[in-house]
C-alpha cells in the first residue's frame, strides 16, 4: 500500500468515510482535533448498527431461533476479531465491558481485591488518567495497600531509575498507561513489564490511547491485563474490552452478577459460568460489540503501519508549526510521542482559547483531561490539547495555527 503522506486523494477518500467530517460547525468547515477524547465514526460502523436493528436483531445466547443465533454469532465473531487484533491466545481472554473505565475497575475489584493483602504495593505513574488512579486509590484505602507513583521528568517521560527503586518484594501490580492522553508520551511498557515480570509482578496496561496509535500484541508485551474503550477506536460508545490472561481470569470472581453468567442458581447458591460469560452479566451491549468489530475491520483495512506513519508525520508538522508561535508552549515533549499535543498560550486560559477556536469551526479539548496529577506536576491549571487522527490533514493544522493567531490578537498579548 502507498504511504498516506503527500497523498491527498487517499486522505480525501478516507475523510469521505466519516460523514461528520463533511459538516460545518458554527458555519465553518468542521476541524476535529479532539480524537484523544473520542474518535469519530466511519460510515461502516453506523451501517453495522443500522443493519443489526433493521435485519436480524435479537437478544443473544438465549434462544434457538435464527435471528437470535445470528446475533449471537455476530457478537461472538466480534470477540474473535478483537482477539486477533490484539493477538490474544484464546477467545476466553476477551471480555466485553462498557469501557476502559469499567475494565480497570473490574481488575481492581475482581483481581486485586482478592489477591492483595495489607501492605502490598501497587505501582502506577504520575501521568495516569483518573481511570487508572481512582480504582486503585479506593482499593488501597479499603485494604491498606500502598500506592506508588513512577515520577515524570520535565519532558513528561517516566523516570526509569525511580521505577527501579519503587519495585520491592511487596510489589504485586504494575499498572500504567501506554500513551498519555494529556502529554502524548509513549511509555516503554515492554521494558517496564519485563522488569516487573522478572520479580513475578502482575502487569496491567491502560491501552485507551495506544490501541488506535500503535500495533498492540498482548503476547509480545507480556501484559496480564489490558483495557481499552471502543469509542476511541472509531467504534460506538458504551463498549470496551478487558483482556486478561486465561489463567488469571479463570481464578477470578465476577464483578457484576446476574443473568447469563451463571451455570446454576438455586435459592441457596450459585455456580458461575465459564469464561468469558462469567464476566458478562446481563444483556450485553450487542450493538456496541458489533459496531466495534466493524470499526476494527475498517481500521485494519487502512493498514496500521500506514496510519502510524501518517499520524507521526502530522505530529511532526503540527509540532513544528506550533513551535513557530513564540507565545505557545508545548506541555509534553517526550522523545517518543503519539499525535497528541498539549499546550498553553501565555496566561490565556485554555477555555478562552477553546471558545475562540470553536467559533472558527475548530474542536480542541481544554481542561485537565482527567489527569489532575499531571497538571500539578507541571504547575498549570489546565491545558489546551489538539489530538490528531489519520483523518486529519496538514490543512487542519494550518487552520488551527490561524485560529491561535486570532486568539493572540483578541487578547493582545
Amino acid at each position, binding site marked *: 500500500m502507498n504511504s498516506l503522506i503527500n497523498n491527498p486523494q487517499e486522505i480525501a477518500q478516507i475523510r469521505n468515510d466519516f460523514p461528520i467530517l463533511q459538516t460545518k460547525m458554527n458555519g465553518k468547515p468542521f476541524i476535529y482535533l479532539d480524537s484523544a477524547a473520542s474518535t469519530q465514526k466511519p460510515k461502516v460502523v453506523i451501517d453495522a448498527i443500522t443493519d443489526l436493528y433493521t435485519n436480524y436483531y435479537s437478544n443473544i445466547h438465549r434462544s434457538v431461533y435464527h435471528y437470535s443465533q445470528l446475533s449471537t454469532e455476530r457478537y461472538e465473531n466480534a470477540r474473535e476479531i478483537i482477539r486477533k487484533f490484539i493477538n490474544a491466545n484464546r477467545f476466553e481472554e476477551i471480555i466485553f465491558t462498557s469501557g476502559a473505565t469499567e475494565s480497570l475497575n473490574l481488575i481492581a475489584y475482581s483481581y486485586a481485591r482478592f489477591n492483595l493483602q495489607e501492605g502490598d504495593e501497587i505501582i502506577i505513574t504520575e501521568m495516569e488518567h483518573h481511570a487508572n488512579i481512582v480504582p486503585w486509590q479506593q482499593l488501597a484505602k479499603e485494604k491498606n495497600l500502598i500506592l506508588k507513583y513512577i515520577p515524570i521528568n520535565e519532558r513528561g517521560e517516566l523516570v526509569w531509575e525511580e521505577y527501579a527503586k519503587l519495585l520491592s518484594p511487596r510489589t504485586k501490580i504494575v499498572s500504567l498507561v501506554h500513551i498519555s492522553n494529556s502529554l502524548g508520551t509513549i511509555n516503554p511498557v515492554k521494558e517496564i513489564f519485563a522488569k516487573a515480570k522478572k520479580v513475578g509482578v502482575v502487569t496491567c496496561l491502560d491501552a485507551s490511547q495506544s490501541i488506535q496509535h500503535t500495533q498492540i500484541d498482548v503476547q509480545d508485551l507480556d501484559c496480564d491485563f489490558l483495557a481499552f474503550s471502543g469509542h476511541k477506536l472509531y467504534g460506538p460508545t458504551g463498549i470496551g474490552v478487558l483482556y486478561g490472561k486465561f489463567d488469571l481470569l479463570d481464578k477470578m470472581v465476577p464483578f457484576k452478577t446476574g443473568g447469563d453468567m451463571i451455570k446454576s442458581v438455586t435459592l441457596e447458591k450459585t455456580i458461575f459460568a465459564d469464561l468469558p460469560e462469567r464476566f458478562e452479566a446481563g444483556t450485553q451491549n450487542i450493538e456496541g460489540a458489533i459496531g466495534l468489530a466493524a470499526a476494527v475491520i475498517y481500521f485494519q483495512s487502512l493498514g496500521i503501519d500506514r496510519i502510524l506513519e501518517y499520524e507521526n508525520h502530522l505530529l511532526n508538522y503540527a509540532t513544528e508549526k506550533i513551535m513557530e508561535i513564540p507565545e505557545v508552549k508545548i506541555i509534553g515533549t517526550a522523545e517518543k510521542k503519539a499525535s497528541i499535543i498539549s499546550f498553553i498560550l501565555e496566561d490565556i*486560559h485554555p*477555555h478562552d482559547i477553546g*471558545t475562540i477556536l470553536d467559533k472558527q469551526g475548530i474542536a480542541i479539548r481544554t481542561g*485537565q483531561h482527567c489527569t489532575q496529577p499531571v497538571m500539578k506536576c507541571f504547575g498549570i*491549571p489546565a491545558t489546551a490539547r489538539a489530538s490528531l487522527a489519520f483523518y486529519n490533514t496538514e490543512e487542519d493544522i494550518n487552520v488551527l495555527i490561524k485560529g491561535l493567531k486570532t486568539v493572540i490578537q*483578541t487578547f*493582545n498579548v
Partner: protein
Amino acid sequence: MSELSDLYQEVILDHNKNPRNWGHIDNCSNHSEGFNPLCGDHIDLFLNVEGKTIKDVKFEANGCAISKASASIMSALIKGKNFEEVKALYDEFHQIVTHGCEDHEPTEINLEVFCGVKEYPTRVKCATLAWHTLVDALNKV
C-alpha cells in the same frame, strides 16, 4: 451566529488583565471559596460586611477571562451596596446570562458585556461563579 467580539469585548479583556479589588482582606467578616471543576476556575472572595452593607470586597482568582472579569466587575458593582441592592444585581445578572438582553436593558453599563454569554452555554458557569460564591459568602453571615 453571534460574533466573537460579543463575548471577548474590551471591557472583559481589560478586567481580566487588570482585575479591580484584587487581593485579600485579613480578618474579613465573610469569606467563601468557589470552584468550577470543568475549567478549573477558582475564586477566593473576601468581604467586610457592616450592618447590611458591603463595606469592602477583595478577591483572588484563577481561571478563564470570563470568570475573572465577572469577579472583577462584580466586586466593583457591589462595593458599598446594601444587601437589597446586591440581591437586585444578582437577579439581574442571572437574568442576563440566561436570557440575554433582548427584553432587558442592563441597568449598569458593565453588565452589558455579559449579554452574549447565553450563546456559550459552557461559559455561563464561568460567568456566574463569582456571583454564586458571593451568595455563599453572604449566607455565612
